């Protein structure tokens, strides 16, 4: 509440200063509509917030002033000096009350009926306005009043100077960048000074070192916001749910002053709201149920935020009915998220985490409060996007706890610096689970399944890629001891082989430019102490790129017998460059178009073609598809509901009738599998994959 009040006072102070100026201006130019509107808005904002904060006196005064302004705005009243003076009186009163609020945190007691009456006169029909015989009396009374009751009770106190300033975020960001540069410079100086211990530079450089560190942490602090600002809305939400459902719920918020980077506070807001809603709607039982179970009738939701080892932990705990793990297993199997066998082998803890999988929602009925299709998977992806992690624990009948772990700041992350084929890369430490030393002969002992190498990590098989291979780094690695970095990518684990881990350090994450962003295996880049630029690997993106993520699904898929399609399908064969041919069932194709390469335009990193009066998103069927000016590309158009998208290929080869029998399940995205078509092994295009790509391209 205190924060809200502070914000309100800061905002109002700005509004009022503007109001004084605008009103005087208005007196000179009564017909200026935009001025009137701006005055109206300012008063309206004050009124609105007052109502919210329960400041009755302020609300009443501003409301009446607003009504008069509304009359002026609609032209019922003319902007005569008398009206303006009365509004100015109201503004003065608002100022006095605000000043009292600032020093005492409570609204002063007082009687504003005279001023209100004065303002209300202007609201009477025109004829009666001037007829009010008491007008003069009221005016003079106000004059006396204002001397007595409207003046601040501590007139001798100097006016409080605001102890905070509003600063543009861009300015803070540029300060942050400058501090980063300073750190680099300091590192260079430190290195120089360390070569010669007797150097006259030694002491000043040490000083510089200390000051730089302090400066950096101070600048970091300017970007910090209390986590409580993300949960200001929650009491209201909980109260409304309690009222709508007839439950009794108490919301307890602890650690609201825990600070973190403002971007993270923003990222936290929606997931938090969602989870508190879930707790209130689905977690807490009705009064009758709670009573019958001998629990206190009032359910409790506790929010707790605190610092822990360089991270911020936010917990949402409720004492409701908890989550039924058996139900979670059942739903996950039903929705095809896991196989029955897999679900049975999972521990309760693992099974509970299935609720974070896309397409999962435990609410059996959709209520207007929760269950709008955005489930815990959105919560997880929002949290993971900012480098955080979320976990859940539940005890049947006793409630459920969700624990969110977030880094203190987005700008600086802990990282592992690794080497692969002589090149240096950084891994975000948050996604690294463990490091395993591989003996020189370990490489030959990997199991392989459909060209995916698998590492036997205790009881699990973990798909493995070689970073140097994935990034097509030149040269080959010496056959020596190497390191396996086991990462968490989404819900799956996978391993990345590197030569060695060189260092672990805090790095400043810098965004990469538009020409390198499309590579999609980097989370950004950073500048090391020696000024070298290093790419930060995004393990999750690398997993998708390398196809190891779908490999996990392929394993599940091979367990099911592939039902051979009895009837023949017409298949469209097309070239995708590098002499590769792919096929797609003709029944899925809407049209074929020949489009000159120049007409395939690029907007914001995705391709579109102006087609039949609208824009058709186009995705290339693989990296080898070439767009040569002066030549045409074949575009296969697919319809999806009312929208269409195209897949650009090099050329159309043939249409054949064949029994489509997928022999190999795909190990890379965009391909369903391989089938024997016309005697040759041909990859079959995964239309849904490209559909998503086209849609993502249009959205981004």
């Amino acid at each position, binding site marked *: 509440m205190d924060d809200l009040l502070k914000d309100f006072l800061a905002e109002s102070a700005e509004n009022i200063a503007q109001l004084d100026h605008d009103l005087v201006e208005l007196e000179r130019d009564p017909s200026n509509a935009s001025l009137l509107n701006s005055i109206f808005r300012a008063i309206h904002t004050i009124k609105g917030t007052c109502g919210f904060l329960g400041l009755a006196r302020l609300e009443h005064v501003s409301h009446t002033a607003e009504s008069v302004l509304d009359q002026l705005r609609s032209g019922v009243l003319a902007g005569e000096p008398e009206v303006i003076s009365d509004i100015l009186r109201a503004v003065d009163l608002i100022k006095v009350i605000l000043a009292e609020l600032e020093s005492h945190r409570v609204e002063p007691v007082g009687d504003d009926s005279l001023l209100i009456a004065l303002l209300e006169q202007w609201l009477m029909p025109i004829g009666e306005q001037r007829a009010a015989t008491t007008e003069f009396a009221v005016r003079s009374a106000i004059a006396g009043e204002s001397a007595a009751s409207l003046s601040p009770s501590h007139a001798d106190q100097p006016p409080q100077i605001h102890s905070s300033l509003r600063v543009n975020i861009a300015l803070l960001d540029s300060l942050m*960048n400058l501090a980063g540069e300073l750190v*680099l410079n300091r590192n260079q100086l430190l290195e120089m000074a360390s070569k010669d211990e007797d150097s006259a530079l030694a002491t000043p450089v040490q000083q510089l070192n200390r000051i730089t560190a302090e400066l950096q942490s101070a600048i970091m602090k300017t970007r910090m916001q209390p986590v409580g600002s993300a949960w200001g809305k929650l009491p209201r939400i909980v109260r409304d749910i309690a009222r709508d459902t007839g439950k009794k719920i108490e919301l307890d918020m602890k650690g609201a002053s825990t600070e973190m980077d403002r971007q993270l506070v923003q990222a936290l807001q929606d997931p938090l709201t969602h989870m508190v809603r879930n707790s209130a709607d689905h977690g807490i039982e009705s009064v009758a149920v709670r009573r019958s179970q001998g629990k206190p009738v009032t359910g409790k939701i506790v929010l707790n935020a605190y610092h822990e080892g360089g991270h911020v932990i936010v917990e949402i705990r409720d004492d409701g009915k908890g989550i039924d793990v058996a139900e979670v297993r059942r739903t996950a199997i039903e929705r095809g998220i896991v196989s029955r066998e897999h679900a049975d082998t999972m521990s309760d803890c693992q099974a509970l985490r299935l609720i974070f999988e896309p397409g999962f929602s435990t609410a059996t009925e959709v209520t207007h409060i929760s269950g709008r299709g955005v489930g815990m998977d959105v919560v997880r992806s929002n949290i993971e996007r900012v480098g955080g992690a979320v976990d859940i624990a539940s005890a049947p009948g006793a409630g459920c706890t969700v624990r969110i772990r977030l880094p203190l700041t987005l700008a600086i992350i802990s990282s592992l610096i690794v080497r692969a084929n002589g090149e240096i890369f950084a891994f975000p430490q948050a996604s690294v689970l463990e490091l395993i030393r591989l003996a020189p002969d370990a490489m030959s002992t990997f199991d392989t399944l459909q060209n995916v190498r698998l590492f036997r990590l205790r009881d699990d098989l973990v798909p493995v890629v070689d970073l140097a291979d994935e990034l097509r780094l030149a040269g080959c690695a010496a056959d020596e001891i190497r390191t396996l970095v086991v990462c968490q990518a989404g819900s799956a684990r996978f391993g990345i082989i590197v030569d060695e881990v060189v260092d672990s350090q805090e790095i400043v994450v810098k965004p990469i430019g538009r*020409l*390198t962003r499309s590579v999609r295996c980097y989370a950004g880049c950073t500048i090391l102490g020696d000024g070298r630029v290093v790419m930060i690997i995004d393990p999750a993106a690398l997993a998708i790129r390398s196809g190891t993520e779908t490999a996990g699904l392929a394993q599940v898929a091979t367990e099911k017998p592939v039902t051979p399609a009895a009837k023949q399908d017409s298949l469209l064969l097309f070239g995708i460059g590098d002499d590769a041919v792919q096929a797609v069932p003709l029944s899925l194709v809407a049209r074929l178009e020949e489009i000159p390469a120049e007409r395939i335009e*690029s907007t914001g990193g995705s391709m579109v073609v102006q087609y039949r009066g609208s824009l058709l998103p186009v995705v290339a069927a693989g990296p080898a598809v070439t767009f040569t000016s002066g030549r045409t590309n074949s575009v296969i158009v697919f319809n999806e509901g009312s929208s269409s998208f195209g897949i650009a290929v090099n050329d159309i080869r043939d249409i054949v009738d064949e029994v489509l029998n997928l022999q190999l399940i795909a190990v890379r995205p965009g391909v369903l599998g391989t089938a024997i078509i016309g005697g040759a092994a041909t990859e079959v295009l995964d239309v849904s994959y490209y559909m998503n790509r086209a849609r993502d391209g249009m959205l981004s």
Partner: protein
Amino acid sequence: MIALAESTDEVVTFRVGGQWFGVPVIAVQEVISHQATAPVPLARSCVAGLLNLRGQIVTAIDMHDRMEIPAAASESLMDVVVFDGGELFALVVDEVGDVVAVPPHTLERLPASLDCLWARICTGVVRMDNGLLALIDAARLLDESSTRP
């Protein structure tokens, strides 16, 4: 950007192979001697790497690759740092020449026979004493869709 290029009188000239190019002076932040770049594996072929310009990340563009001009072995490289679309790019060129004034009336249309790639990037040509100067539009030069993967 086209309007900008036409209304701006001055261009920074630079040489790639045997060809001189000009880019509006307003797009150029600075010219520096070539800096070491960090490679970006899998990036488009014209991306020479990333370089650190006083703490800012700059994407270096290999102009030989971008304009499809074969590179000679021993060139003393320079970086023309341009600002486009909120990002910094360093055009890695062989030589940087003078800033020259290009009044709009001296600007000539591109020859129709010009290579498609160049036609897409250049806005016009200017006859100079030592040959033709091709004016480059920075936004088109740095448009991702027109670069080779």
